[in-house]
C-alpha cells in the first residue's frame, strides 16, 4: 500500500530497460514533445547534478585533504589543550551529541504533532492552519543570531537554565521545527485520498490510521525534514554561542555549558592564531559524524515505514 520506490526502470524511462521500452525522448515514437527537448532537458538535469557533485568535492575535498593529518584516535578521545591547538575534541563531541540529542528529542515529537494537525485536522483553507503555516514560514527566516539572542533571553535568563546544553538544544529545536513540520506536512498531504477513505471504510480509529498508514506514507518528507534539521543543527554556530556557550570542559549534566563542534571550528579558524590545522581536523570529524547520524536516521525511518506497511 505504501508507495514503493519507483526506479526509472519501472517507468520505462531507462532506455532499454523494462518491457515496452518507452525510453527517453531520444528514441522515436515518444509522444508529446520534440525529441531534442528531451535531450536538452536531460543535459540540464545531469549538468546540475554534476555541478553540485563538483561543488561538494571541492568543499569537502578541501576539508578532507587539510584535516586528514590532524585526526587520529587520540584526537577523538583527548580533551582540547592550548585553546584547542593541541589535544583533541573529546569533550566537544560529547557536548555536540548532547545538544543534538536534546534538539531532536524535543523537535521531532513536536514537529510530527504539528504536521499531523496541519494536514489532518486543519484543512487547506482553515484560518488556524494558515496562521500556523505562516508562523512556521516566518520562523524559518529568522536569522541565526536572533535565535541565539532570543534563546539567551528566554532559555538562559527567563527560564533560568543559564549557559547550558539544555538551552542550546532547546534553541536549536526552535530553529529546526519549521523545516521539519513543513516537510512532513508536505508528504502527508500528498498521501492520496483513497488511503484515508479506505481507512474510514475499514472503521479504524484516527490514531491507528495515522500510525499505520499515514506516517509510513509520509516517510519521504519525514526523512528530508529530519536530515535537513540535523544538518541545520550541526551547522549552527551563532545561535549556540549565546546559549550552550564556549566552555570546553566535559559536561556533567545537561545544565552544564558545553561547546559544540561548530563553535570549536569557528574559534580555531577565526579566533585563535595557529588553530587552523585542528579546525580542519574537527571539520573532518564533523562530516564523518554527519554521515553516521544521517545513515542511522534514514535507516530508522525507513524501517518504521516498512513496519507500518506490514501491519497495515
Amino acid at each position, binding site marked *: 500500500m505504501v508507495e514503493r520506490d519507483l526506479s526509472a526502470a519501472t517507468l520505462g524511462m531507462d532506455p532499454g530497460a523494462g518491457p515496452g521500452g518507452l525510453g527517453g*525522448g531520444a528514441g522515436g515514437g515518444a509522444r508529446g514533445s520534440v525529441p531534442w527537448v528531451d535531450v536538452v532537458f536531460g543535459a540540464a538535469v545531469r549538468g546540475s*547534478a554534476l555541478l553540485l557533485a563538483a561543488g561538494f568535492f571541492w568543499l569537502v575535498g*578541501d576539508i578532507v585533504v587539510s584535516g586528514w593529518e590532524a585526526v587520529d584516535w587520540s584526537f577523538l578521545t583527548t580533551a582540547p589543550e592550548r585553546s584547542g591547538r593541541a589535544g583533541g575534541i573529546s569533550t566537544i563531541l560529547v557536548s555536540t551529541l548532547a545538544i543534538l540529542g536534546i534538539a531532536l528529542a524535543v523537535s521531532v515529537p513536536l514537529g510530527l504533532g504539528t504536521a499531523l494537525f*496541519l494536514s489532518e485536522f486543519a484543512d487547506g483553507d482553515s484560518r488556524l492552519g494558515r496562521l500556523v503555516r505562516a508562523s512556521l514560514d516566518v520562523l524559518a527566516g529568522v536569522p541565526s543570531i536572533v535565535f541565539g539572542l532570543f534563546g539567551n533571553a528566554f532559555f538562559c535568563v527567563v527560564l533560568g537554565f543559564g549557559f547550558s546544553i539544555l538551552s542550546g538544544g532547546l534553541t536549536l529545536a526552535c530553529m529546526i521545527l519549521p523545516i521539519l513540520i513543513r516537510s512532513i506536512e508536505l508528504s502527508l498531504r500528498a498521501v492520496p485520498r483513497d488511503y484515508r477513505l479506505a481507512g474510514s471504510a475499514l472503521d479504524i480509529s484516527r490514531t491507528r490510521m495515522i500510525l499505520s498508514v499515514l506516517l509510513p506514507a509520509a516517510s*519521504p518528507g519525514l526523512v*528530508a525534514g529530519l536530515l535537513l534539521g540535523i544538518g541545520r543543527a550541526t551547522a549552527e554556530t551563532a545561535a549556540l554561542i549565546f546559549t550552550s556557550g564556549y566552555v570546553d570542559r566535559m559536561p556533567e549534566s545537561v545544565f552544564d555549558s558545553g561547546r559544540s563542534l561548530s563553535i570549536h571550528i*569557528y574559534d580555531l*579558524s577565526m579566533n585563535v592564531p595557529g588553530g587552523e590545522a585542528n579546525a580542519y581536523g574537527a571539520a573532518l570529524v564533523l562530516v564523518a559524524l554527519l554521515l553516521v547520524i544521517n545513515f542511522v536516521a534514514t535507516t530508522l525511518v525507513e524501517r518504521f515505514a516498512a513496519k507500518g506497511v506490514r501491519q497495515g
Partner: protein
Amino acid sequence: MPRQRADRILVWSLRATSALAGLLVLMILGFLVFESLDGVRRVGAPRFLSDPGWHPNQGDGSSEFSLLPMIVATLTTTLGAILLAGPIGILAAVYCRFYASERVSKLFRRLIELLAGIPSVVYGFWGLVTLVPLIREIAPPGASLAAGVLVLFLMIVPTVALLAFAALKDVPKQHLEGAAALSLSRWSTLRQVVFPSAASGLGIALLLGTMRALGETMAVLMVCGNIARVPESLFDPVRTLTANIALELGYATADHRSVLFVSGLALMIMVVGLVVVQDRLQRRASLG
C-alpha cells in the same frame, strides 16, 4: 467509546503542539520589538530609510541610521542565491528521482545531506580563502555581492534539492503509470504530470531555501566585504542586515545595540511580507 476518546486526546494534543509553534513566532517577534523599541523611539522610523548612510556610533550626534544599503544587500544576495539554487536544486532532485539508478541516487543524496550539515563558518572560511581571491582576479576587492550569492547558493541548494526530492517522491505512482501508458516522453511526463502534481512541495522547497538564505549570518559576514553602501555592480562589497547585527553587536553600546536590533526587525518585516505574498499566491493557485 474509548477509541473516540483516544482520538479526541490526539486532536487536542496536536492542537497544543501547533499552538506552541505559533506562540514561538510571537515571542521572537515580541523580543525583537522589545529590544529595538528604544532605538526606534530615539531615532524615528523614517530615518532608518532616509538617512544618508550607516554610521550609528558617532559620539557627537552626527550619527546616521540608514538601513537601505543593508536591505538592498539582503534582497539581492537572497534573490541571486535562490535564482541559482532553485533551478539547479530542482533539476538535481529530478536527476535523483527519475534519471539516476537507485544506487547513484542514494549516493548523490548522501552528498547533498552532508553539504546541508557543514557549519556556516566552514562555508565562510572556504569562501574567504578560496572564492574571494578567485573573484578578485576578475574584479577587486573580491569580497562582494557575487561572493555572497555564490556562497549562499551552495548553502541553500541542499535544502531546495532534498525537499524537492521528497516532493517528487510524493507524486502518486498512478500518475506516473498513467503517463507511461500514454507513451509520454520523459520531459513531457515531467512537465505535464510530475511538476503540476508536486507543485506545492516544490514551492515549499523554494520558500524554505529562500528563508534559509535570508537568515544566514556567519558566511555572508566573511565574504561580502561588509561595506554599508548600496551596490552598483555585482562585484561591489555589500553588508546584509544579518551581517550588520553580527558585526557590531558584540561591541555596541546600549543605544547602538538597540538600533542594531532594528536591522533584525527590518529583516523580519521583509520575511513576514514574503510569507504573506506566498500565502496569497498559494490561495489563488488552489482556488483557480
